[in-house]
């Protein structure tokens, strides 16, 4: 099994390095093919490992070599394949295989074809390290590695200012969170003496709650950045500047879920601190609603999907925060399938529309792009949580979990009705914006003609590549039980019980009805001939709410005005005012004073003999007067002391 582990891990690296050799040369098709094959190898190995684990095999644990060792610190390159990581490995390798193959078609005409595959495979490698590591430091390697690859891929079209800006933003925002994560790591090390999961988890039980709380908070700050939780969420929407396969792989299926993975991986920690868990869940619920609301009015196809991703990540955090780790993981997996499919479908549309992103400029594309329409429609149904698609099972489980409340620790059943209500409402919104998008793109008038587009169906390879994802999005729900059985040991998962079967039915059916009615509402509103490209004149567009949502609650604006700009200005002040005018000027000033004193006092050397002689005599007189003063003081020292004491000195 170790061999498979290494193959699964290093095949993407090999692929990346291979492609990297050709970065400076013109497009070579074989880089894409080799890259895809190697990722596929990785997928196969992961599948073998999955089978092994499913059969009840012991987790595979290997230590490759020492990385850092100094003092008491010992960090190896160690990898573990257990129920959690194998799930993640499957998700990662599967989606990335699909994306790789899809990209061969999608990036066909791009100059940076080889470079793209180098970055993409490198990303997969980093992600594999992240999920397979057996310690926090290794996780951090992958953590930063995916950040790096994300930077490279968002800014892939580096000639575009917006792309490079978004890349930097993503990287820096992630760095902010990484600092939190790093501090979390330090806390873990200094309190448990190790960064290995095993050792640290065992030691957590002996620590006091406040320490654990701090660890939990700092680690979660790390997770917030990667998973783009409020207030570090702005980068995700901007990250859509990258090529669409990247958005599918990184910003939907894998990297952004790393935060969820971290929480799940540290479930032994978070089970001990349910109050932090509650906070996570609350934040998750908030983000779910918050992001969905922004998706309602947005006019950028990819951004809508990105907000949807954000919203779904909120769902996962609710589950993870409430202790339903397996549910979170399950939703993570299901979400990866349908969201990646959705993105890739959007990629097809972009291809067809010459990279146009505004769905209002499309419409009626279903005739031209039948397969894309079908696949995106199915994926949207899954996203909306319609039975029997994958989304139904996973999202429903989250809603139930929220309803039932935290049940891992303390055995106190707390119902979180507010969270539940928010999630339920968000589910409706999700259905609405998903089908608003579908309706705008594929139905209604063929508005694209006004803009002179000539859409066409995507290449076969691209369609074929999406197919497995769509299939999985449809059927993944069927594996719920298997999945539960597999991970329950690793995650202390428990079945939870809603009070009565009837409540469950009411809830389920209610949710379904709500979602379906929202879908219909979306169709009614957007599948008609009155839909036109908004020009900023309609009443809706001038309403406060619309503006608020359209401008993403003015948060990016706030960041730009009150963080980025002041930072630049303060930097400028630090340089021109503080560094040059104060610190450096002081140094030069001291030198200047010495030099200036020399320049001024050199008059003393007038060259006139009389003056020179006078100086000598003056020196003598000075010495003499000092002598006299001193001599008198010495002679009359008693009297002086007496006098001084009389004065009271």
């Amino acid at each position: 099994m170790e061999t498979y582990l290494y193959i699964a891990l290093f095949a993407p690296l090999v692929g990346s390095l291979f492609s990297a050799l050709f970065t400076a040369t013109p497009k070579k098709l074989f880089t894409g093919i080799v890259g895809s094959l190697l990722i596929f190898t990785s997928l196969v190995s992961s599948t073998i490992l999955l089978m092994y684990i499913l059969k009840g095999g012991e987790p595979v644990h290997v230590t490759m070599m020492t990385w850092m060792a100094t003092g008491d610190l010992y960090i190896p390159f160690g990898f573990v394949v257990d129920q959690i990581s194998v799930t993640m490995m499957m998700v990662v390798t599967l989606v990335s295989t699909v994306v790789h193959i899809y990209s061969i078609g999608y990036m066909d005409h791009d100059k940076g074809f080889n470079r793209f595959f180098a970055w993409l495979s490198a990303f997969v490698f980093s992600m594999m390290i992240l999920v397979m590591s057996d310690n926090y430091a290794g996780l951090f390697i992958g953590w930063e590695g995916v950040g790096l690859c994300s930077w490279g891929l968002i800014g892939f079209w580096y000639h575009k200012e917006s792309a490079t800006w978004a890349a930097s933003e993503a990287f820096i925002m992630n760095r902010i969170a990484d600092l939190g994560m790093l501090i979390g790591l330090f806390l873990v090390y200094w309190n448990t003496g190790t960064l290995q999961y095993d050792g640290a988890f065992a030691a957590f039980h002996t620590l006091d709650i406040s320490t654990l709380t701090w660890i939990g908070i700092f680690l979660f700050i790390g997770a917030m950045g990667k998973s783009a939780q409020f207030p570090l969420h702005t980068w995700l929407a901007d990250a859509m500047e990258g090529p669409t396969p990247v958005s599918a792989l990184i910003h939907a299926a894998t990297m952004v879920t790393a935060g969820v993975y971290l929480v799940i991986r540290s479930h032994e920690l978070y089970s001990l601190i349910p109050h932090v868990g509650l906070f996570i869940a609350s934040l998750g619920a908030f983000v779910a609603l918050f992001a969905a609301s922004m998706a309602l009015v947005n006019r950028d196809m990819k951004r809508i999907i990105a907000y949807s991703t954000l919203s779904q990540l909120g769902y996962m955090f609710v589950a993870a925060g409430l202790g339903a780790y397996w549910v979170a993981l399950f939703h993570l997996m299901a979400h990866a399938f349908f969201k990646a499919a959705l993105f890739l479908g959007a990629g097809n549309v972009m291809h067809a529309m010459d990279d146009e992103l505004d769905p209002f400029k499309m419409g009626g594309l279903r005739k031209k792009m039948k397969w894309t329409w079908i696949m995106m429609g199915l994926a949207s149904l899954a996203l909306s949580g319609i039975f029997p698609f994958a989304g139904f099972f996973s999202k429903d489980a989250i809603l139930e979990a929220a309803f039932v409340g935290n049940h891992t620790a303390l055995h106190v059943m707390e119902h979180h009705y507010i969270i539940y209500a928010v999630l339920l409402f968000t589910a409706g919104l999700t259905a609405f914006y998903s089908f608003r998008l579908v309706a705008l793109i594929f139905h209604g008038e063929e508005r694209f003609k006004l803009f002179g587009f000539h859409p066409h169906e995507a290449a076969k390879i691209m369609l074929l590549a999406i197919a497995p994802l769509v299939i999985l999005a449809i059927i993944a729900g069927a594996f719920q039980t298997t999945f539960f059985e597999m991970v329950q040991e690793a995650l202390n998962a428990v079945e939870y019980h809603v009070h009565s079967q009837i409540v469950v039915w009411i809830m389920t059916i209610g949710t379904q009805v709500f979602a379906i009615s929202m879908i219909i509402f979306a169709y009614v509103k957007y599948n008609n001939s009155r839909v036109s490209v908004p020009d900023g004149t309609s009443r809706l567009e001038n309403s406060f709410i619309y503006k608020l949502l359209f401008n993403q609650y003015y948060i990016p604006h706030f960041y730009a005005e009150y963080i980025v700009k002041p930072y630049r200005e303060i930097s400028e002040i630090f340089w021109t005012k503080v560094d040059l005018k104060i610190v450096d000027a002081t140094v030069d000033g001291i030198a200047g004073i010495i030099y200036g004193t020399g320049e001024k006092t050199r008059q003393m050397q007038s060259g006139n003999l009389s003056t020179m002689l006078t100086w000598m005599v003056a020196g003598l007189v000075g010495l003499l007067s000092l002598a006299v003063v001193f001599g008198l003081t010495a002679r009359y020292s008693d009297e002086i002391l007496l006098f001084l004491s009389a004065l009271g000195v």
Partner: protein
Amino acid sequence: MEIGLTHYLVLSTILFAIGLVGVMRRKNLLLLFFATEILLNAVNVAFAAISHYYGDMTGQMFAFFVIAIAASEVAVGLGLLIVWYKRHGSIDLDALATMKG
């Protein structure tokens, strides 16, 4: 009033002070040299008086050496003065300031 050592010493000091003032005030090189001679001679007076006071010859010896040195100083000084005068036609002190700073 008997003239005692103190008086000699006071005289010497006064002479010395006169010499110092002369050294500072004189702008003529020759007069400047005179002033330095006054300085040395002031010392000579004192040495002689002290020597007598102690009944010790050393002071007078010193005085003799001072005289000898003063003489040689004059010799060297006048030599320099003459050369300077030959070159510049003046023995004014203020002309003697090409180097400064």
